[in-house]
């Protein structure tokens, strides 16, 4: 059989990444290339002086080991960007342009929508020149690119949904434009991959896509770059790691911290990450008078993330709406037991974790306190969790994707219609 070739569109990829999407794309791509699939990964890539905050080292040199080609499209788009944030970036860009030279051409779109459109046109150009069998794109910013690539080449399109607009906004003030793009992508696609049944349900419910067309492929965790740190400590540490934004529920983490500290002051809470809620959270911590017990560590990635895990006695993922959630798997990989919200995809597959409703702050505090104080519980959760997490290999989701590629290619070759 001929080697499968996949053209992938994403928003982020190591080393240029800020969140779980990049980790997932990286893991999946590695799994695919392990299985002898060729992947060309296309990502937007900003001008040097703008991307500094995103540049984190994540074994870029390792990438050359794989049959993986990374293509960058010059763009101001970044993952998890909102309309306003894009506009701010755009204005900054225009400013920097002015300082450079009088004649610089304005390269990027005036607003986020123009830019997404521009990106899709660039994608079309790449699609015309690259050799591939299947198009696979990740989340809404990449969907127009995928649609254009399909139009230009007639190759089958797979869209993978890591998060919907309903997750990002918690269902409040859903951006109609983003929603339309998401829905268009799902309609135009030959198959839709959802990262959990939780997400599949949302796609069916909010986007009216037939369940037959949606395949669930759960994420996994990478074990090849297993870290090895030893950090000393004397206080019990509870870790939050994720963007500080509504979807991730950091505010529930803070409220639970207060309840825990009222009961047992010998606990430290570390908040790793940044985001639009940061100021509000810092303010709330001060208001609750637990400033010395709740530490904001800012954004971390790569080895710093692992160092954070090593520090922790317990990892908490209180997400309000988490399509999958890879961090609990990373925590277990680093031998940290986890409490996760029931409103997450990962809770469908991870058995050896404590699970709470994100809004149930009392129960979250109860579970934090018991894990920190009952050694038998900590030990068993970790023991079984660490064994279980080793069954989550990226080869599994990679194989599921390959099966989907083959399925759509077969349908395509025989003129069968996708469901």
């Amino acid at each position, binding site marked *: 059989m001929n080697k499968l070739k996949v053209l992938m569109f994403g928003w982020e990829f190591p080393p240029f990444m800020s969140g779980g999407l990049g980790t997932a794309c990286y893991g999946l791509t590695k799994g695919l290339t392990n299985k002898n699939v060729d992947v060309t990964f296309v990502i937007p890539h900003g001008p040097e002086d703008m991307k500094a905050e995103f540049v984190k080292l994540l074994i870029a040199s390792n990438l050359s080991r794989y049959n993986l080609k990374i293509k960058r499209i010059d763009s101001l788009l970044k993952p998890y960007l909102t309309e306003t944030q894009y506009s701010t970036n755009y204005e900054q860009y225009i400013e920097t342009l002015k300082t450079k030279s009088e004649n610089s051409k304005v390269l990027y779109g005036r607003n986020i929508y123009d830019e997404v459109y521009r990106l899709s046109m660039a994608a079309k150009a790449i699609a015309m020149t690259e050799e591939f069998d299947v198009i696979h794109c990740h989340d809404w910013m990449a969907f127009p690119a995928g649609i254009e690539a399909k139009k230009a080449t007639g190759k089958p399109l797979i869209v993978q949904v890591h998060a919907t607009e309903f997750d990002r906004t918690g269902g409040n003030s859903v951006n109609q434009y983003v929603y339309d793009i998401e829905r268009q992508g799902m309609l135009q696609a030959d198959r839709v991959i959802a990262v959990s049944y939780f997400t599949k349900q949302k796609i069916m419910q909010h986007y009216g896509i037939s369940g037959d067309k949606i395949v669930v492929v759960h994420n996994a965790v990478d074990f090849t770059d297993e870290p090895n740190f030893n950090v000393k400590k004397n206080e019990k540490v509870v870790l939050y790691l994720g963007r500080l934004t509504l979807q991730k529920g950091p505010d529930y983490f803070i409220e639970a911290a207060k*309840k825990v500290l009222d*009961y*047992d002051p010998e606990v430290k809470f570390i908040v790793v990450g940044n985001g639009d809620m940061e100021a509000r959270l810092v303010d709330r911590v001060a208001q609750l008078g637990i400033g010395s017990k709740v530490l904001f560590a800012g954004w971390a990635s790569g080895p710093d993330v692992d160092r954070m895990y090593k520090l922790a006695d317990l990892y908490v993922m209180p997400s309000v709406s988490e399509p999958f959630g890879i961090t609990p798997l990373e925590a277990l990989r680093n031998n940290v037991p986890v409490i996760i919200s029931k409103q997450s995809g990962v809770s469908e597959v991870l*058995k*050896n974790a*404590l*699970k709470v409703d994100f809004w149930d702050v*009392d*129960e979250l*505090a*109860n*579970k934090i*306190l*018991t894990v920190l*104080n*009952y*050694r*038998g*519980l900590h*030990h*068993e*959760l970790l023991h*079984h969790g660490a064994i*279980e997490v080793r069954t989550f290999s990226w080869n599994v989701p990679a194989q599921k994707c390959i099966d989907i590629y083959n399925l759509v290619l077969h349908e395509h070759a025989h003129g069968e219609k996708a469901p």
Partner: protein
Amino acid sequence: MPNVCFYFQVHQPYRMKRYSVFNIGNTSDYFDEHKNKEVMQKVAKKCYLPTNKAILDLIHTYKKSGRQFKVSYSITGVALEQFEKYAPEVLESFKKLADTGCVEFLSETYYHSLSYLYSKEEFKAQIELHRKKIKELFGQEPVVFRNTELIFNNELAHFVESLGFKAVLAEGADHILDWRSPNYVYKAKTTKNLKLLLKNYKLSDDIAFRFGQKSWKEYPLTAEKYATWLNQHAEHSVNLFMDYETFGEHQWEDTGIFNFLRHLPHELFKNPHTHFVWPSELALNEPVAELDIHNFVSWADIERDLSAWIGNNMQNSALTELYALEKMVKELNNKVLLEDWRKLTTSDHFYYMCTKYFNDGDVHKYFNPYDTPYESYINFMNILNDLILRMKKHIQEKSIVIELKDKYHVQHRITDRPAKMLNEVIR
């Protein structure tokens, strides 16, 4: 002379409420009345009432014919209490069965506990409580003992003999029987006269587990077919030991389990030599051999050992801490505290903490009110922490050690070593 010995275990635990760290010190209401009532009434309707009626009918039918249909039961004290509270009609129907003179009641620990493994004194006390209860309700003095989940070894046999019992039940596990048949009466190496009655697990499990399984090659199991299997045996007796909830609860009515039960004696009596016997009657036989059973056997899981209740860190910690409180809780001489402590000794609480099959999505799940073993341990330990707090308050009120007063004002924090903490305070 094929004899058949039916023994049914009747048990319902007191299931706990969800009990958080923040409930400690605020409520000592540990048990989920609503849930326990609901379960009891459901099982009464599906199992206890219809099965008791079927058995009563059988007893009456065959009494007239001159041959007796006999069965034996052990009913835990906690099940009896819950009958009294939530389903008195079930208790009445058991009393009616007792009145026929065709039913034998066996002894066991009142709280269906693992006390033998942790405290002989408590073990004895719970057997005595159970004896009184059976006497009071059914007017019988049990002479045959069955330990919780048929947990058994040489030493237990020895101890039980010293309490005056004539026989004890155990699992007829392959690893203790080897080539021998479970259908004879044995004795344990450590005893003088105590008889050992072994469960024929193959024929018992044909009813208890396989009866409704469509994939089983013997499905559907008719009374006629099963009777021919039993009637082949010419040893002391075929011992059919099982949970009473097999009828109507584990095997639903639509599997035909009740029809099977109603027709079985008729089919068995086609052999003029077949009789039903009680465990106490079997105890009159001379044992055919001595068995040497050092390691504990039980009737649970495929391992048939203690690993369903003891083994992981959560189970070990919960059990050790619970029994570490025994001496203190008894010295306090407070009925309510002692009863709450005893309700925590019920083996089901530790079964819920089992991680053995959790990862395969297992049998334990069916009986488990918790989503994970972790939640059950959290609940148990939180409750144990509250019990300690109440014990401390009680000590203070009774001014057993007056100079300790100040220490009680130290804020209580949860601990997985509550007994140690209590001892420190008292010292």
